[in-house]
């Protein structure tokens, strides 16, 4: 064992910070705390050899020292050893094993990973073990780590997990043919299968016909393939919704297949009837949606959620979330190159007290830090710029934080003369798995994701990611792709091999030899190998004549390649372990046998509330409060932890302005060095509107995503969108009703805008059972948009450019304060429930006209008008550009006369509005170009760095310094404060 520790006699920043964290929960003071990095080495090396290893590899001699088999300090009262549990990916140990072999030392022992990393913490002045156990809960995660407290020794677990399996335990029949309903449910529950009674009965009927019992691996295959995570059975079901409006009138909505008749239908209608060019290339059927980009390339986009794992182990959960969606892009068509990441998170407010957090839930601040660190530590090494994101805070995300990870990719339109979106395996092709080895990690991940959680929910499904392996196979994969060495590629994520090969062989059938899958340790049962979700693997079908070359390319990168089966053509899934057949399932039943019973729901439309209330007596103060609210405030602390510049193509940054720190509406990258065209990414989400009107919640999200991407310079005619539904329990008729209404809105609004959906994903059952009842998340629909910018040189950005320029608002402001930050901040949420509406025809006319103006050089800056309303957006343009503005509210186009007039104009969040800065000499030209559109010139840009607002009657109602506004906006997630305390 070798220990590496700081040379300095003074405590290092990480030691001070850990000491402070532990002290919070300890009665006695920590006098001193030191940390050492430990390497436990299994090979039996001589002391001299260990000395060489320490000296030439492990120690940084400038700042560190090392010791061999010896604790380097004296006088400590307690030692704590923390490390990854056996079987959890240990990247540092893995790299150390490789690097020690590079030293060319004596050969000794096995060649697998023989180094295990750990951390040793020594404390002076603390000896209460019990208190320490409590205190440690904040600094290590028992899901993936062990911790041992001792007075004088280092205690490590037994790392070798290998066991032996008796031949007769390799496969078991599970008797279900004669089981009654209760027994069927019990079998599903006991096996963590998450199959409901209808599904168990369908399987029972099928095996009755076959006159045999299913084997364990067969039942597991159904559980994986039929899971909500893999098959989206709620959205595919027939649905029936009875709506009663506020006067008692009833309306019935009926669908045979909800998603097909709403979201898919919108895309079909747009492609068939639209009066513009069809931009779609591949929609809904692949791992990502693919659209056209230019004559040489297509682009693709996918957003996934990784909610359940992130609740239990935020760091590992979020990291594997981003790892998974990147693999989706690598498996889009023949494999696309990832060019941008986007991350959207939903958390509970990070400042709630510990007492408010129910048992079994991690405090939201720790979740936020862990999630951000997890995305950072996986996303950055992958070399993909993270350019876009958002964070939403609501206390109902306490038990179920949401983690949306998205990746955009680029792929040549043709590869070896064939359209790159088409992939088909052939009979006789080898089935190949590449990348990491398989262990017990992530078993039952997808069925776990389909269940509600409570304090007893275990988290074996959570894994630690290894971005370097994924990076390595990505490099190799493109070489193999361009040489035409494979016929099909499939992500090996949720459901593991069962999902990847089940998908690949769905049409033709396949046979898998599970004993050929390389294992991290011996003793896995065939069914465990089959459904393990070990990370960083990808599945391919490779024609036998290309296999050797395919293998060579990956092995040069240091990536393992394993031939584990073949495409058969008998339309069956055959699973073998050596000579033993452990399972055989008809592909047709596997993929089409899942029962989809009709979902029933009812919805009672509330009476719209529009009560009067007093105007705010200090709108300037209220503005600062809104700027400082969790949802509006600066997210720079998060953005700066991500590499937004790698690949060198980032044109419009996530943060913009004179100090590079203002809030952009989205981002633009220029992925093709040979072209001035760019790709814009944005998103829209309004979970608060859903409390009053789920239809308008979904409609607003689509409009917001579109508005944002237009502000980034995308052509509104060349935009595609993704849906990500995160919902509560769909068996609850109210949640189901909200889901149906949101789907209906998706169809109506997407069709109205002629903006097609190209892919999507849903995550249901986001509920947490506490002793006081169930916490269900608000109905949350994330809309992510990808669009084409014809010429990136025309993009204006969001911050004010020049004194003397004019400010214009395009679009109408209405009395739509429902769900607004204004009412939230004033605690008047019940006073008005009129949520912003969407008029697709008018809005799209405006967006097209604005885009035309941008291309003609008539726009100096533009910014989306959303959370916090008109004045919040103007403030952001001012402080980002370090310029002031004078605003005349009487010039804001409106359709109402109700009081409080000024407040509604300032803070209403009406959709369809964009703020535009017009260069001073271009005003007339702009007005002419916008003829017939609803717009008003509402003010001028000034050099005096104050924001002045004249109310309707000409009085000055706001007079604020822009630096005060900026300070308010930056305060909650203050950079220095949050940066000082790292997530991991």
């Amino acid at each position, binding site marked *: 064992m070798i220990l590496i520790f700081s040379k300095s006699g003074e405590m290092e920043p990480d030691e001070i910070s850990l000491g402070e964290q532990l002290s919070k929960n300890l009665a006695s003071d920590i006098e001193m705390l030191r940390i050492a990095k430990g390497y436990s080495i299994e090979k039996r090396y001589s002391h001299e050899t260990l000395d060489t290893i320490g000296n*030439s590899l492990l120690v940084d001699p400038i700042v560190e020292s090392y010791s061999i088999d010896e604790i380097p300090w004296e006088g400590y009262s307690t030692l704590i050893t923390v490390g990854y549990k056996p079987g959890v990916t240990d990247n540092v140990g893995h790299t150390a094993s490789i690097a020690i072999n590079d030293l060319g030392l004596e050969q000794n022992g096995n060649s697998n990973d023989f180094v295990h990393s750990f951390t040793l913490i020594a404390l002076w002045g603390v000896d209460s073990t019990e208190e320490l156990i409590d205190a440690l809960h904040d600094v290590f995660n028992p899901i993936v780590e062990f911790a041992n407290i001792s007075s004088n020794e280092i205690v490590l677990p037994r790392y070798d997990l290998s066991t032996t399996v008796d031949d007769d335990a390799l496969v078991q029949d599970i008797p279900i043919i004669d089981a009654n309903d209760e027994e069927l449910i019990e079998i599903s529950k006991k096996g963590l299968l998450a199959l409901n009674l209808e599904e168990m009965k369908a399987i029972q009927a099928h095996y009755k016909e076959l006159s045999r019992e299913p084997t364990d691996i067969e039942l597991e295959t159904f559980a994986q393939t039929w899971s909500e995570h893999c098959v989206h059975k709620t959205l595919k079901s027939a649905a029936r919704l009875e709506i009663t409006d506020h006067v008692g009138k009833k309306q019935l909505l009926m669908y045979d297949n909800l998603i097909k008749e709403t979201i898919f239908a919108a895309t079909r209608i747009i492609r068939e009837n639209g009066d513009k060019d069809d931009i779609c290339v591949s929609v809904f059927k692949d791992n990502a949606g693919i659209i056209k980009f230019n004559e040489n390339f297509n682009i693709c986009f996918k957003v996934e959620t990784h909610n359940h794992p992130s609740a239990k182990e935020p760091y590992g959960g979020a990291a594997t979330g981003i790892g998974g969606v990147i693999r989706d892009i690598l498996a889009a068509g023949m494999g696309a190159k990832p060019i941008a990441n986007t991350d959207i998170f939903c958390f509970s407010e990070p400042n709630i007290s510990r007492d408010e957090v129910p048992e079994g839930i991690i405090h939201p601040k720790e979740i936020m830090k862990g999630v951000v660190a997890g995305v950072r530590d996986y996303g950055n*090494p992958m070399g993909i710029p993270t350019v876009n994101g958002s964070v939403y805070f609501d206390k109902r995300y306490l038990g179920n934080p949401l983690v949306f990870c998205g990746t955009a990719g680029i792929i040549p339109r043709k590869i070896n003369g064939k359209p790159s979106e088409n992939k088909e395996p052939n009979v006789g092709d080898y089935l190949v798995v590449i990348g990491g080895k398989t262990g017990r990690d992530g078993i039952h991940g997808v069925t776990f994701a389909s269940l509600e959680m409570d304090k007893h929910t275990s988290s074996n499904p959570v894994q630690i990611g290894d971005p370097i392996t994924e990076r390595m196979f990505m490099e190799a994969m493109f070489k193999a792709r361009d040489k035409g060495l494979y016929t099909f590629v499939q992500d090996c994520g949720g459901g593991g091999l069962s999902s990847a090969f089940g998908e690949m062989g769905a049409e033709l059938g396949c046979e898998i030899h599970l004993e050929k899958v390389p294992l991290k340790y011996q003793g896995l049962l065939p069914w465990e190998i089959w459904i393990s979700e070990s990370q960083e693997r990808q599945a391919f079908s490779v024609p036998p004549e290309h296999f050797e070359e395919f293998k060579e390319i990956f092995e040069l990168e240091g990536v393992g390649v394993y031939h584990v089966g073949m495409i058969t053509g008998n339309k069956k899934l055959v699973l073998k372990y050596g000579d033993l057949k452990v399972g055989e399932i008809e592909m047709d039943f596997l993929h089409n046998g899942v029962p989809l019973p009709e979902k029933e729901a009812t919805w009672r439309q509330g009476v719209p509330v529009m009560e009067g209330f007093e105007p705010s007596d200090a709108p300037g103060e209220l503005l600062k409060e809104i700027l400082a609210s969790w949802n509006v405030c600066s997210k720079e602390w998060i953005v700066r932890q991500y590499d937004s510049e790698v690949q060198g193509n980032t044109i419009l940054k996530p943060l913009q302005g004179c100090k590079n720190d203002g809030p952009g509406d989205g981002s633009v990258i220029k992925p093709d060095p040979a072209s001035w065209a760019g790709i814009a990414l944005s998103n829209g989400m309004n979970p608060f509107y859903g409390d009053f009107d789920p239809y308008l919640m979904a409609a607003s999200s689509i409009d917001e995503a579109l508005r944002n991407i237009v502000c980034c310079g995308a052509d509104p005619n060349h935009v595609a969108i993704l849906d990500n539904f995160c919902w509560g329990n769909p068996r609850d008729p109210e949640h189901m009703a909200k889901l149906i209404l949101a789907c209906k809105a998706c169809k109506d609004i997407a069709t109205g805008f002629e903006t097609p959906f190209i892919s999507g994903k849903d995550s249901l059952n986001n509920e947490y059972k506490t002793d006081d009842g169930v916490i269900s998340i608000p109905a949350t629909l994330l809309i992510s948009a990808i669009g084409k910018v014809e010429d990136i040189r025309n993009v204006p950005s969001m911050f004010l450019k020049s004194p003397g320029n004019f400010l214009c608002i395009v679009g109408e402001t209405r009395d739509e304060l429902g769900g607004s930050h204004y009412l939230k901040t004033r605690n008047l949420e019940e006073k008005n429930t009129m949520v912003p509406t969407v008029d697709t025809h008018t809005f799209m006319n405006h967006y097209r006209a604005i885009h035309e103006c941008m291309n003609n050089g008539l726009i100096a800056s533009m910014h989306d008008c959303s959370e916090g309303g008109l004045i919040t957006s103007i403030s952001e343009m001012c402080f980002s550009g370090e310029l002031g503005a004078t605003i005349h509210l009487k010039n804001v186009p409106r359709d109402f006369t109700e009081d409080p007039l000024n407040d509604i104009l300032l803070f209403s969040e009406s959709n369809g509005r964009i703020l535009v800065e017009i260069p001073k000499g271009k005003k007339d030209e702009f007005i002419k170009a916008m003829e017939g559109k609803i717009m008003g010139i509402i003010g001028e840009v000034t050099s005096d760095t104050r924001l002045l607002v004249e109310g309707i009657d000409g009085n000055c109602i706001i007079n604020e310094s822009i630096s005060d506004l900026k300070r308010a906006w930056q305060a909650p997630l203050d950079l220095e404060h949050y*940066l000082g305390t790292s997530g991991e």
Partner: protein
Amino acid sequence: MSDVENPSAIVIIFPGTNCHVETARALSMAKFEVREIHVNELLQDKSILEQFQLLALPGGFSYGDDIASGKVAANKLLFKLEDQIKSFANDKLIIGICNGFQILVKAGLLPAVGGDFKIQATLTYNDLGHFYCDWVKLKNVNSGKCVYTRGIDFIELPVAHGEGKFVVKEDHVFDQMEKNDQIVFKYMKHDKSPANGAFPHNPGNSLKDIAGICDPTGRILGLMPHPERYLLRYNHPRWTAGFGDDEENGIRIFQNARDYVIEHLI
């Protein structure tokens, strides 16, 4: 002297390297013939190196930056390619960017005061404790020793790293570096005054605001900021407000290298 007509550069890729595409693009734009090669392929035929006049170690996370950033890759060079690298360093050009800089320092190729390749300095964890990405302002303080930065006075470039705090083994190392004109780039504030260690201008609290250094010959350069990410004015964070330049940007570093190669190496 080589018999090759055009300047040619080799870009070495380690597992986890992720900036090789844009580094190769920058070298191509500066009119180098460029070959990107995986270190495992290079080890199969080490003599390949002889064909090139410039060796680039791009940014990324070589071997995951596990153990310490750049350490395992540095050992790869020291234990598997020692003779070839030392002979390359003898008269040719080497540039290490970000992770490449970390590799050069941990292999002892920088700062190499006194000319011996011993470990004299390190790039360690930023004081703020984690990765940080932003654009920084840099002043070229080199008096002419460094062959890459001639004609550059002041430049803005992006940084993106978690371990960019330059630290020397003993004070005399820094004194010697200064005496030898080995300091190249220093972090500055918005108003172009010295950052003096202040966050976020000097993001990792690097010693004496050091962002880039060269060896005593000026032919080996290591820097934390990424010149290959600023090759167009449209990469600049405030190009929409008229900032940024199509010529005075990161490309100058690679063009200077090309000029040196043409003048001295072919």
